């Protein structure tokens, strides 16, 4: 019989993943555990194995598409003789071409002439979203020059004039004296032949927009590519992409308050959008705008991106999931943790000898006796000796959470970006074991076999860029951890022995830490201890 193969649950808070590669085709015989597809989530790439044996009858997924947990990916014919007809669109083999007359639906979608410029009320100042119109200084039909004052406004803070940014003729005045205008709202329509008016059309090339947007939008790249004009009669209604699942009254309400209904998530059955959903979305937009415009609550004003193609050719690529998550995570970590980076150098001349001597031991266990492997063990001991580095901060509750276990993450560079697999209970493993585990987990990461669990639960992170080079860097703490150790390239330096200069192999280390719970002295001590342990390995067992 024909069985549906559905995408299994992927992990906490993960509802969907991108299908990066489909590994089977119709007719393939598949075995249990055989990988059927490669997927990528926010956190990692993974393979999905089959849980049954059979022959692929239908492939219902496509590379590049998103799949949700529970979604049917394949139809597999298994051993049983009875075959169940799968649900599909019944097609009549000779369905005629649809001439325009009969199409029951229509979508009008013309955007305005390219010469009309929507002049929007520009930013007026920090946290100012609207202003009162005290005096309109032009009338319809007037010719205005760039920088000429169009209107006088009053905000909480001041009175000001708003100048035009184009030359042209005022076609329509969309505000009136005594009314309120919102930042971002179209207040004048000016007919202009200026070629570099940045936003010379209604913002969106999409089919639904009304020209007014009273809710200020998050900064968007102004579009300058010509808006394609389609005759209203030619376009067929695409229910999925244009008409949102909302009653007509709800769609109208959304339009009236300036919300793009297609962006609202419906909480009703089948994703139906209610008025409440629209209100909730509007509210969240306002909150986001406030926090976005205040740079995550730190009083930073966002700067919209310029149109780079003004200066030359550009190529726009979408971010993959790993990059996106990395970007978001690091922005947060950087903004919320007061970073200090402490630099030091360890004399590893003798350690190098030890590495060469015992290298084979590690190899026979499946690993390499690298500086990273050794530092893993040293760091574990250091975390024991300096417990405030093995903790997390809870500012909301004014608490420090000390961890009694020691898991350390190791940054691995893959072709999809940076991931940090975690080695658990480092203190309970010896260096040989750690070296082997490190080799295994790095291979796993590069082979896209990392699971979500592998990436979670770390207390501290080590990032080794020495293989590539460099004399030092300022790593970003992997929130919610409080410290991160960066390793750069060791090199021979002359050290004064007291009587002469001798060449010693020095390894630069960079320790970034969260200054909210780690003070400078502790930072220096922690790093110094690590350097000492590298120089005198016995310190690990003595004090660690």
């Amino acid at each position, binding site marked *: 019989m024909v069985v549906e193969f559905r995408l299994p649950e992927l992990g906490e808070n993960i509802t969907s993943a991108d299908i990066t590669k489909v590994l089977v085709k119709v007719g393939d015989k598949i075995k249990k555990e055989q990988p059927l597809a490669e997927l990528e989530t926010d956190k990692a790439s993974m393979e999905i194995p089959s849980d049954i044996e059979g022959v692929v009858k239908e492939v219902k997924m496509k590379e590049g598409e998103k799949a949700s947990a529970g979604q049917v990916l394949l139809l597999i014919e298994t051993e049983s003789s009875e075959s169940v007809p799968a649900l599909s669109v019944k097609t*009549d083999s000779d369905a005629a071409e649809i001439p325009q007359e009969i*199409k029951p639906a229509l979508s009008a979608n013309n955007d305005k002439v390219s010469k009309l410029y929507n002049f929007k009320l520009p930013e007026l100042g920090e946290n100012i979203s609207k202003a009162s119109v005290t005096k309109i200084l032009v009338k319809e039909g007037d010719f205005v020059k760039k920088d000429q004052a169009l209107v006088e406004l009053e905000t909480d803070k001041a009175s000001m004039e708003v100048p035009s940014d184009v030359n042209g003729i005022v076609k329509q005045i969309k505000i009136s004296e005594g009314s309120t205008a919102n930042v971002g709202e179209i207040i004048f329509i000016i007919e202009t032949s200026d070629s570099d008016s940045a936003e010379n059309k209604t913002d969106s090339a999409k089919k639904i927009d009304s020209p007014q947007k009273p809710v200020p939008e998050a900064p968007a790249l102004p579009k300058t590519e010509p808006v394609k004009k389609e005759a209203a009669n030619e376009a067929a209604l695409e229910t999925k992409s244009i008409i949102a699942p909302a009653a007509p009254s709800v769609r109208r309400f959304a339009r009236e308050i300036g919300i793009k209904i297609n962006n609202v998530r419906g909480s009703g*059955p089948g994703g*139906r959008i209610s008025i409440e959903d629209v209100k909730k979305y509007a509210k969240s937009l306002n909150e986001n705008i406030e926090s976005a415009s205040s740079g995550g609550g730190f009083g930073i004003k966002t700067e919209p991106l310029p149109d780079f193609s003004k200066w030359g050719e550009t190529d726009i690529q979408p971010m993959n999931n790993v990059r996106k998550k990395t970007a978001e995570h690091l922005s947060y970590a950087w903004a919320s943790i007061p970073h200090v980076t402490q630099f030091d150098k360890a004399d590893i001349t003798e350690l190098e000898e030890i590495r060469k001597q015992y290298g084979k031991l590690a190899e026979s266990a499946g690993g390499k006796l690298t500086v990273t492997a050794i530092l893993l063990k040293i760091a574990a001991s250091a975390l024991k000796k300096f417990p405030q580095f093995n903790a997390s901060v809870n500012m909301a509750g004014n608490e420090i959470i000390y961890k009694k276990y020691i898991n350390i993450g190791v940054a691995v560079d893959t072709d999809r970006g940076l991931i940090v697999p975690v080695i658990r209970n480092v203190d309970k493993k010896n260096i040989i074991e750690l070296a082997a585990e490190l080799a295994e987990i790095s291979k796993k990461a590069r082979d896209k076999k990392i699971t979500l669990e592998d990436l979670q639960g770390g207390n501290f992170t080590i990032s080794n860029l020495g293989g590539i080079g460099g004399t030092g860097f300022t790593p970003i703490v992997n929130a919610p951890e409080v410290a991160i150790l960066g390793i750069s390239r060791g090199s021979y330096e002359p050290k004064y022995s007291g009587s002469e200069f001798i060449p010693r192999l020095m390894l630069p280390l960079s320790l970034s830490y969260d200054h909210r719970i780690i003070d400078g002295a502790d930072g220096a001590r922690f790093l110094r201890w690590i350097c000492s342990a590298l120089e005198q390995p016995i310190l690990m067992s003595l004090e660690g």
Partner: protein
Amino acid sequence: MNKIKLAVLGAGPGGYTAAFLAADLGMDVTLIDLNKNPGGVCLHVGCIPSKALLHVAKLLEETKHAKKWGIDFGDPKIDIDGVRAFKDKVVAKLTGGTGQLVKQRKINYIQGRGQFLNPNTIKVEKTDGTIEEVQFDKAILATGSEPVRIPGLWIDSPRMIDSTGALELKDIPAKMLVIGGGIIGLEMANVYSSLSTKVSVVEMMPQLVPGADKDLIDILTRSLKPRLGSILLETKVVKIEEISEGLKVTFEGEKLNEPAQIFDKVLMAIGRRPVTKGLGLENTSVKFSEKGFVQVNSQLLTDDLNIYAIGDIVGNPMLAHKASAEGKIAVEAIAGHKVAFEPAAIPSVVYTDPEVAWAGVTENEALKKGLNVEIHKFPWAAIGRAVTMDRTDGMTKLIVEKDTERIIGVAMVGQGAGELIAEGTLAVEMAATAKDMALTIHAHPTISETMMETAEMVWGLSTSIYRPKK
């Protein structure tokens, strides 16, 4: 605040609906049309007269059908003048009625031919010979459409008619050819065949009402076939000549029995085109598409900031109710409301007997776009009411989105489909799910129950049909 001066050019369903709403919203409205009363093609020579005649046709068919139920009416005496008078009375009543509404709303109605002199002025050549210039702030263009004539085939003869001529019902021809198996052609074929004309329908495409879902049209065709002389599909008309016996029509097609036939009348119903010439639009910034429709945005605003356009001149579907819906949006846009014309579904109806009606996504569309849908069909033979009416030539079809179980398309064929489709249109607009439809109690015994039962088929739980889901 000064009243907005609105000029509406064309008083069909689009124009007069817009004019009435505009007046209700306090605008100063001038309505210009060639006819004495509003109504346009729809009321005068379209929707209304055809439905009046189809009503007569339905009665005639039902009386014939009654023989099966033990009632024999014999052969009816058809007084064609009486039938025509009924139709004319209906038209007069309704056009008079809209004329009354114009007066009640104090709309300035000008009977004449309008032309734009510039984006603020329309010059009207009135029927009394005088000229009047109408100044406006905003204008709505609603000049509608006209039947297409194939220049090589059309013959200037009283035997050659278009839909307007067909509705005049000058006489009952013994043998008539309808060129074009679309909605208008079929409705006229339906009317004349019940009046005892031997009607043949010739259509270029492989099915009647090309573009509509085949399963619906199959049921319609099966019902129509015994009443019509012949249905020639995948056939073209290549020549029409007038001879003493009538119009000799030469066909071209693979499945022909006779390459040429003689008819008393030939009705050309191959489509309609927008009326945009001779309106002075070159004196405005209004622009057209390749197909000749007026280009508008979702507020129905043309490329001229003062002029809006609605109805048949902006595109398909050329339906009266689309025009009036657009008219309302255009007026609201002029009034400064934040609106857009974006319906989720516009119903289409073929008013033949049996009727065909659909709204939202059709099966053809779902296929073309590769939508992930389930299609459920319920044959009316399984529903009580259809059996009581002895009219089981019908089917209800629901197109349901698989992931969300949302109803995105509804279609039906059968008696009364045109009225029943309203529930479907509402369901699609409200983003109803199949569950909503299945859980709504529908009266028994009615045809409307088929909507509920078709929805139940989504889970294999339809009462009247045993089709368990596997």
